[in-house]
């Protein structure tokens, strides 16, 4: 899961929380929203997913499938140009139909996951990294500047404050200081918390001071500064996502609202108007990053005042509603669509699939829901359908040049080789005698049987493997087998020649010459292992086009 799909999946939660917040901000305990933001924060920070049948994506997919079966949507039209391109390459027509209908339903995020390509990823990665660094630096520099101002504060000699500190002990020692460089009270420091009061504070107004200190004390108790830093970290990581910016703004507001709520509950509801008035008079602006929030501060003060005035005792019913809301948001949005882990036996079979093309055995055998499907990625009867010839591969390269990526994908290209230079290398290899297999594998990412393959969520992978078949000195055909990567093929070739030299059937010089004729220095991208790529993808049951006319051709 890369940062972009992570961000996208969290966007749904943020949107849901924003809706809930708009509806219930003054009706539910403020802690509810803090809990919800924490869930969103976890989602944005932790790069793994918890699959659930009840996930909103799963539900939408099911509804969509049901609706589509009813409406018989002519999805093929969308992919009309693609069909032509595939036809141009001589793929069986009925297979195209099966695949195209399925492919049309791939949700956008899944396509992007599948098509992430080494070249396009690298510049995107650097762009992301640059943005994240700029934002993080902005926050750090702002923090550092403010910190310097805060440090030149002076201690306060005041009986009330000394007494207050004695009745509010905390494991971390709290310092209360004053500074005439600030206009409103604030708190900074996580492990060594300091409450900073403006120099203009009226030290005689003990009621006012008690409120201000109570508010700051709650912030310190709850490690709100740390929470704010985590939010800053998340924002820097997800700077490209406008919804994360919204989350940053509203989560910061909710930190204040929760704090206000706790103060009002401590002092009793009768005091809330006094507290609200004091807030207005202070125009209290919090935080290390005032510059960023200032645009929203006017609205937020209004929101805080309304929220304080509407604060009521938290009833059992309210807490219950809050808990239900939180858990339903977790189940609906914080999980991902059901994608059961790939069963071990499929993993095992998958490894064998590599051998299939040469041995003619079943490529993939999948047992699902009591039924067994066998999948042959190639028509073994027909050599033309099995290997690329030079002409076909040139067509493929031309497709890649048209920049019609989906068409190009359809033509059965190796995913990581959108890069033309890589394709040219493969063409050179084909011309040089290396066999490159046409291989299409279809995985269905939802729990749908073969009867609905055409309308289910599908992932398609294209890959080719490399083989080398040649005649040795005595005229026998040597088949080295099929390999995931060129390097594996070259290693096998090297082993073959080494054995020939050891057995005295060939001189070292001759072996080197023959080896170098085929092998060439490899670039790193040749080393991508299909197995690694597949294991890193969330995929579940493998459903094969075993129905319809297409199946006859494939099986």
């Amino acid at each position: 899961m890369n940062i972009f799909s992570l961000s996208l999946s969290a966007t749904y939660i943020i949107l849901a929380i924003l809706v809930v917040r708009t509806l219930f901000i003054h009706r539910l305990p403020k802690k509810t929203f803090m809990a919800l933001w924490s869930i969103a924060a976890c989602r944005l920070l932790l790069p793994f997913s918890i699959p659930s049948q009840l996930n909103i994506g799963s539900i939408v997919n099911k509804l969509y499938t049901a609706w589509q079966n009813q409406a018989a949507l002519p999805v093929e039209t969308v992919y009309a140009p693609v069909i032509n391109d595939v036809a141009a390459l001589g793929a069986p027509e009925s297979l195209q139909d099966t695949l195209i209908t399925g492919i049309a339903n791939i949700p956008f995020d899944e396509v992007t996951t599948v098509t992430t390509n080494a070249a396009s990823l690298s510049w995107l990665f650097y762009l992301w990294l640059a943005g994240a660094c700029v934002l993080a630096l902005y926050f750090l520099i702002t923090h550092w500047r403010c910190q310097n101002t805060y440090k030149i504060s002076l201690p306060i000699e005041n009986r009330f404050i000394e007494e207050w500190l004695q009745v509010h002990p905390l494991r971390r020692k709290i310092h209360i200081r004053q500074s005439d460089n600030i206009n409103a009270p604030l708190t900074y420091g996580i492990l060594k918390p300091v409450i900073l009061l403006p120099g203009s504070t009226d030290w005689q107004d003990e009621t006012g001071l008690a409120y201000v200190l109570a508010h700051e004390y709650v912030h310190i108790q709850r490690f709100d500064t740390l929470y704010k830093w985590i939010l800053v970290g998340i924002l820097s990581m997800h700077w490209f996502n406008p919804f994360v910016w919204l989350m940053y703004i509203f989560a910061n507001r909710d930190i204040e609202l929760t704090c206000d709520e706790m103060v009002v509950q401590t002092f009793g509801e009768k005091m809330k108007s006094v507290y609200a008035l004091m807030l207005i008079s202070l125009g209290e602006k919090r935080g290390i990053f005032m510059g960023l929030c200032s645009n929203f501060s006017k609205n937020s003060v209004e929101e805080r005042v309304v929220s304080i005035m509407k604060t009521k005792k938290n009833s059992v019913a309210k807490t219950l509603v809050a808990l239900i809301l939180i858990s339903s948001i977790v189940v609906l949005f914080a999980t991902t669509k059901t994608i059961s882990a790939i069963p071990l036996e499929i993993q095992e079979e998958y490894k064998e699939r590599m051998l299939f093309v040469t041995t003619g055995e079943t490529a993939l055998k999948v047992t699902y829901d009591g039924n067994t499907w066998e999948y042959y990625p190639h028509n073994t009867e027909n050599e033309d359908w099995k290997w690329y010839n030079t002409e076909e591969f040139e067509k493929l390269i031309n497709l890649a040049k048209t920049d019609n990526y989906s068409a190009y994908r359809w033509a059965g290209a190796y995913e990581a080789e959108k890069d033309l230079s890589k394709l040219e290398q493969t063409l050179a290899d084909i011309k040089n005698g290396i066999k490159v297999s046409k291989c299409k594998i279809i995985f269905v990412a939802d729990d749908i049987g073969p009867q609905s393959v055409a309308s289910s969520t599908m992932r398609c992978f294209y890959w080719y493997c490399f083989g080398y078949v040649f005649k040795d000195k005595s005229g026998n055909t040597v088949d080295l087998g099929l390999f995931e990567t060129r390097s594996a093929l070259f290693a096998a070739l090297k082993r073959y020649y080494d054995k020939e030299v050891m057995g005295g059937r060939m001189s070292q010089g001759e072996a080197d010459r023959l080896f170098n004729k085929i092998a060439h220095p490899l670039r790193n991208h040749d080393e991508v292992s299909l197995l690694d790529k597949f294991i890193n993808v969330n995929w579940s049951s493998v459903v094969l086009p075993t129905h319809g006319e297409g199946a006859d051709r494939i099986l």
Partner: protein
Amino acid sequence: MKLFDSELKVLDVLWREGDITAKRLAEILHEQVQWSKTTTYTVIKKCLDKGVVSRGEPNFVCHALISRQQAQEMETTELINKMYGGMPDQLVSSILWRKDLSGEEIERLKKIIEKLN
């Protein structure tokens, strides 16, 4: 010119202790107001920029360029300009009306005013 509390703190030490090195100043302020060495040096720099402190050799000896009285006058002038529309008499009457002044103190202040007239 506005002097911040932090800058006045530095001046206050210089007025009491006379000319002392920046190092000694940092030691005193660390004890008094828990400033770190860098924080004190930052404030000294600000005082240098405002021209209220000079720093000489050897060992960065700091010297207050304004007296306590001058600083008080500066602050008072600013207060009069800011709060009393530039009219000193308004400030005086405001002081005379303060509740925390004893009758004795008020009498003393009145005498000062009469003497100045």
